[in-house]
């Protein structure tokens, strides 16, 4: 596979993945595995998220201050897991990314399905 294509895709995925993670955490704290499963379930397994790519993304978001992490014992559980939680800054970022995403989708939509065609 040509190298250039490969790097392009990763670049695209990174931003998207960050947004998906933030959106998932909007429902409340979750650990890495739960986030992975949630993304997979809600997209009906269309988006195959390689679990491994989740953790670099989570640590990156944490470093930017959009999420915080804490080791907690879940309700009814027996042992600690590392839970991630959205920060106010993370919420703001999600809003920004969502509106950016909408603009992107809308503009791509206008190209793909011009109003006249319908």
């Amino acid at each position, binding site marked *: 596979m040509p190298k250039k294509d490969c790097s392009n895709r990763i670049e695209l995925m990174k931003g998207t993945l960050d947004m998906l993670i933030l959106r998932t955490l909007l429902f409340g704290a979750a650990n890495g595995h739960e986030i992975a499963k949630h993304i997979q379930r809600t997209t009906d397994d269309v988006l195959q998220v390689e679990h491994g790519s989740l*953790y670099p993304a989570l640590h990156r978001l944490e*470093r930017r201050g959009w999420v915080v992490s804490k080791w907690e014992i879940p309700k009814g559980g027996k042992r600690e897991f590392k839970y991630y939680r959205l920060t106010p800054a993370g919420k703001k970022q999600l809003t920004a990314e969502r509106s950016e995403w909408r603009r992107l989708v809308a503009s791509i939509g206008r190209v793909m399905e011009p109003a006249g065609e319908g």
Partner: protein
Amino acid sequence: MGIRRRLKSWLSWFPWYRRRAREADLARELRDHLELEAEEQRAVGLTPDEAAHAARRALGNELQVEEDVRAAWGFMWVETLLQDFRYGLRMLRKSPGFAAIAILTLALGLAANTAIFSIVNGVLLRPLEFPHPSQLVTVELAVPQFARKFPVIPPNPASYVAWAHQAKSLAGIAAVEVGGSLNLTGRGEPALMNADSVSANLLDVLGVRLLLGRNFSEDADQPGRNHEVILTNALWRNRFHSNPGIIGHAIALNRIPYSVVGVLPASFHFFQGNQLMSVMGPTPKPELFVPEVFGKSDLAADAGFGIAAIARLRPGVSRAQATAELNVILSRLFRSQSFPLPYPTAVVTPLHGMIVRSSERGLWMLLAAVLAVMLIICVNLASLILTRAAAGEQEAAIRSALGASRGRLLRQTLAETLLLGLAGGALGLVLARWALWALLAMAPAGLPRLHNVRLDGVVLVFTLGISVLAGVAAGLLGAWRMARANPQDALRSASTRSTDRGAGLRAREAMVGIETALGAMLLIAAGLFLTSFAKLERAPKGFTVEHIVTLNLQLPSAEYTRREQRSEFWRRLLVTTAALPAVESSAVTSRLPPGGEIDDDPVNLPGDTRPIAERPFASYRYVSPGYFRTLEIPLVRGRRLTWADADTGAVVISANAAETIWPGLDPIGQKFDGDPGVLHVVGVVGDTRSVTLSKGPTPMVYALYGGGMTGSLIFRTRMPGAAVALELRRAIWRVDSSVAVPPVRTMGQIVSSSLAPRRFEMLLTSVFAVAALLLACLGIYGVVSYSVARRTHEIGIRMALGAQKMDVLGRVVGQGMMPALLGLGTGILVSLTLVRLLSSLLYGIKPTDPLIFGAVAAILCAVTLLACYVPARRAMRVDPMAALRQE
């Protein structure tokens, strides 16, 4: 908060603890993930083993994930850097032989570089140790018509006084009359002190504060008020036992009491006369300063062009502005005294540049040479790394298949070579102390500002920079190849079996080329210097050097006020010393050869209306009749001088003076206007290099030595200098016990010290060239033998297919020689353009001398041929069967 937590939060201030905590955290997080995923898979119905496997598959490359997370932490680059260095250390420990050789060669190269650079730094780069040193300048004169003979001449008292009174662009200007000497008496044996007569403001212009006492009083340059003296620190320490009570006391100089007004600090270093003045021969540094007094006759506009002028520009004034103003003042002065046109103009030179002008080029050349050696060392190291990189290609491939990025592989090699460079630098600094010590011991005494040379901060930065650069350069060359390793190719084929492939081979060939080119350049420079030095040393001087002992004397002016007294002293002295059994003959002269251009003056023929500058010039010497016999200067025509010639104007001239002044005529009996009145030629003697050894013989005019205050005695003796010195001293004190007798110098020592700068350059360049040759040779040997080792299999096949041993030999040697020959060609071409820079440092040889270039080419060819032949012979001995069986 529990104690453990508190401890944790306290420990978290330490980066290493935070890192370990984070690492543990990440490992646990990933382990949790895998467990949760496996649990889920088991719930779907997989066996525990299958479930664990599926969980791993879903996670992806775990090492890669960890690396990516670490990258997300951000501060990790420090961490990975440390890791890389640890890896580098591990690699070096694994191959201690390689590390030792690399560090040692780097250290030797860096030591040489550090030592040479500290000289360049101390002499050329460090500003003069006076306040605002960039404002300090020297002022000399240029006479356009003289330009061919003398680009500049020293100013005279008249111009100095005019500048001192009128120049607004100068904060101050001081006059220095260099090279004087005074008899210090009344304290044990009389001693001859080197003394500069200076204007009272010299120390103010330089901005020097005295250690003790005060500066000269302001009217100290007035006759009768000038009996003040300022001592240098060394003289005060050695002669006056650092006694502070000396201030205000009188010491006897030439038997006149001089009041000691001040003592200079140890940090004050003045200059030799030849460093301050363009036309001056070597004169020693002063040990004391006395005020200069200009008499009425000194102040004529056309008299006394022989002082040095040091000025300080006003802040903000440029040299050009100052020059313009000084020129206006000069033309006013010369017009007022109806000096013949054209008027001299001022030449303003930065003081630092003036001081170092004669050593500058040689020092830069030496730095370039030693840097070239360093470059060869780097290339050799790079070639070693490349060889090892090729051997480690599989390891690199495996690591890159496991997820190590190319950048990381490159960084690791860089870290390794950087470690080598830094280790070499550290060891090099230790060695540099000795190297510098040795260099300073052999440095010519005339090299200015040597007291400034030390391993200081700037030198350390230079060494660190060069070590890092060497490490990076060597590493980049080697790692570049490694990072290009294609994992699949390398894994598929065992690299030792392959023939040498494109990029690696080309890189190694380029290295051989660079080494040979640099080696050729250094050898050419060394060859030129060696030949030039040998020619200069063998050049006929026109006078004998062997068995000649010399002595400079100075008469005490208080007792020898009349000329007849002085003349009587010298004659008696010559008679007394000539009677000594050890002395074969003796003579006295106004200046010992090689004495510089300071005594060059025009020969004014009767009726010659040409401007002075266009008249013939000769160097004037005053000598006793025995001078020619003592120095074995042959008589060509006429007769030698006798004591009976006193005050008759009889002179003897050199053969080349006769040819240039009276071509085709009989010089005997010719008259001309010289220094003391009308002179007439009574004899012609052989040509001599009495002015400078490095130029052809100068036309000379010898007049009879009259009654000078100073004189240089010359003795021909079969005894060693030290033995005859004692006898001479006793003889001199029999004539006058108050005359200071300085240590004798043999003519051999004088000649040798005048050749010292060239010897220094020649020796060092030769050492560097030989080092370069050896290093280049080793480099070529390494490359060729590596290539042979790698191609054992291929050579085996060729031989199995019927290739003859000689074919194999020819092929290997040819492949090794090709880049070497290309490098040689390049080196010669580059040298052809660069050697022009050396022409001012050479004597009697053109910088593009074909013989030198040819010899260097031949030497390099022979040496590289040998370096290729030894490993090639190994290739010839390859047993085809053994090579094939390796498969």
